[in-house]
């Protein structure tokens, strides 16, 4: 198609002496055909590479985990103990740590992120939004290892000195806010670091979703004497909740997959504790922490198994996010 278009254009310029030259015309057409096929091959290669890379990763992870897979089978996921020294491995404590830190951080980040999204899309003067919007996106661009350092030197001591004891004394009846720890490295601190990572994702995505709400709908609500809160609740959130949920799922996916920053602040102790102020471990943080110093082949294979669990969790989250936005998003 592009070939025909160009030749039509060229021949319509036939009155120009340079272009009426037959050889030049042919050369142009040849070049065009070559560029077209090059583009087609490049696109094909790109598409195939995505598929192959995914397959290769899944294969590598499964084959790396084969020893643990044949030893434990699916029961690995339900085994609580992770003790490399005695050769006992199970994913439950790490799964627990991953879900606790992710759920806590996404819960906080949803409130913050949706509020930022509403502010940027509906309330902020255009000039303010033009400054704050990119800043939010830059927050997402901070390398996680840098955030982890901030977590170690700033957030962990601050949590230890200023937050743990007051929260325990006020909300101590909730098991989550147990007795304060001694170092500040805990599920709680890890969740805070994750909040910083997840907020920009939820904020940017939900802002984009809110911007798709037709202004006629908002004006229709305003013309009925609705307050700003009622407009947001009735005309904005009610039409975009699926998009907001999808944004939260993507944030959740980011939170469960984060390894480095979490390793830096979580304390790296594999245990299941209801207390958020106790140190813990997640699937990602354990792999990041122990993978270079395995004590046995089973240890390495078990870490591959953890990676497999993480992979499945991530894929499931992403598919669910797609499902939600596709099946509930188009319904207006």
């Amino acid at each position, binding site marked *: 198609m592009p070939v025909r278009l160009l030749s039509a254009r060229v021949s319509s310029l036939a009155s120009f002496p340079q272009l009426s030259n037959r050889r030049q015309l042919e050369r142009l057409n040849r070049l065009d055909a070559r560029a077209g096929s090059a583009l087609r091959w490049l696109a094909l290669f790109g598409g195939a590479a995505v598929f192959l890379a995914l397959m290769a990763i899944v294969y590598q992870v499964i084959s790396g985990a084969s020893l643990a897979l044949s030893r434990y089978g699916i029961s690995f996921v339900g085994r609580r103990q992770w003790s490399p020294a005695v050769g006992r491995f199970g994913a439950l404590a790490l799964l627990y740590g991953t879900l606790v830190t992710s759920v806590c951080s996404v819960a906080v980040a949803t409130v913050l992120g949706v509020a930022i999204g509403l502010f940027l899309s509906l309330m902020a003067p255009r000039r303010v939004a033009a400054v704050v919007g990119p800043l939010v996106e830059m927050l997402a661009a901070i390398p996680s290892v840098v955030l982890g350092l901030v977590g170690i030197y700033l957030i962990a001591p601050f949590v230890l000195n200023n937050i743990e004891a007051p929260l325990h004394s006020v909300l101590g009846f909730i098991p989550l806010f147990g007795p304060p720890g001694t170092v500040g490295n805990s599920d709680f601190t890890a969740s805070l670091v994750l909040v910083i990572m997840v907020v920009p994702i939820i904020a940017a995505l939900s802002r984009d979703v809110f911007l798709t709400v037709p202004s006629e*709908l908002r*004006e*229709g*609500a305003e013309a*009925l*004497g*609705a307050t700003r809160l009622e407009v947001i609740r009735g005309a904005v959130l009610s*039409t975009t909740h699926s998009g907001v949920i999808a944004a939260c799922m993507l944030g959740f996916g980011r939170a469960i997959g984060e390894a480095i920053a979490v390793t830096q602040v979580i304390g790296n102790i594999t245990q299941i504790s209801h207390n958020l102020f106790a140190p813990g471990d997640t699937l990602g943080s354990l792999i990041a922490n122990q993978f270079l110093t395995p004590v046995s082949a089973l240890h390495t294979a078990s870490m591959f198994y953890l990676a497999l669990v993480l992979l499945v969790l991530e894929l499931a989250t992403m598919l669910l996010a797609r499902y939600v936005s596709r099946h509930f998003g188009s319904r207006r």
Partner: protein
Amino acid sequence: MTSSWTSSGSSPNAAEGQRATIRPRLRLSTGVGADALTEPTCSPTPTGAQVVFRAEQLAVSYGAKRAVEDINIDIHRNEATAFIGPSGCGKTTVLRCLNRMNDSIPTFALDGKLLYHGHDLYGPHVNRVEVRRRIGMVFQKPNPFPKSIFDNVAWAPRNLGMKDDLGGRVERALRAAALWDEVKDRLRASALGLSGGQQQRLCIARAVAIEPDVLLLDEPASALDPIATASIEDLIHRLKDRYTIVIVTHNMQQAMRVADRTAFFSLDEHRVGTLIEYDRTETIFSRPADPRTRDYITGRFG
């Protein structure tokens, strides 16, 4: 004096102010606010009708650009007033001033005076949410919420705390909008499944469900076919017994059919929109005083 549609904090009367501060939105639904509609502040005109809106030297600018100027008009109670004129002459701008829908445009500025039942609509303490609750608006393009038919109509009453007999209120509003018979068996169905004309009548039902004082209609039939248009026009005739109606229309026959008074807008010598002539509809269409009006209605211009 305290007008019930100004914000509570501004009230010079402490007791009144306090009551309003506690439950400002509920106060509306109890009907206390309705007194304002019959307050003697409405100025009598020579014909004896009450003036709902009075614009004095009203002018609107968007940034440095003046959109309309020199608007002087009295809009009377329980009448339908049509704004006609060529595109871009400020009819819709003036209409949207009447319920402060232009406020959200950052560069919007208004000069002159716009009185609603004698109160300055753009006064410092006027609560625009309150203004819009009393002065409803229906837009050019039907814009029902993506909710059920029932919820569309019940949404605003629920917000305002009018929860008693919500079903009855919805039914009355749908009957008033001549839609009840068509939708009574599928109130729980999505409003987006209705035809364009039905959606527009639903929007009118939605507006009358909170019993406003005035209905502003911005080319309500321009996106509809002739049959749906006719039903909207019938509806306007019936609604003006209870509401004051202001309608912007491009269709002169429509203005002749529905309006008691007609205002002709056009561009003045500075290319700024202005009100050329305002009179009873028969007069405008049979003996217009201004040659520009005559040219427009006879189709020589615009």
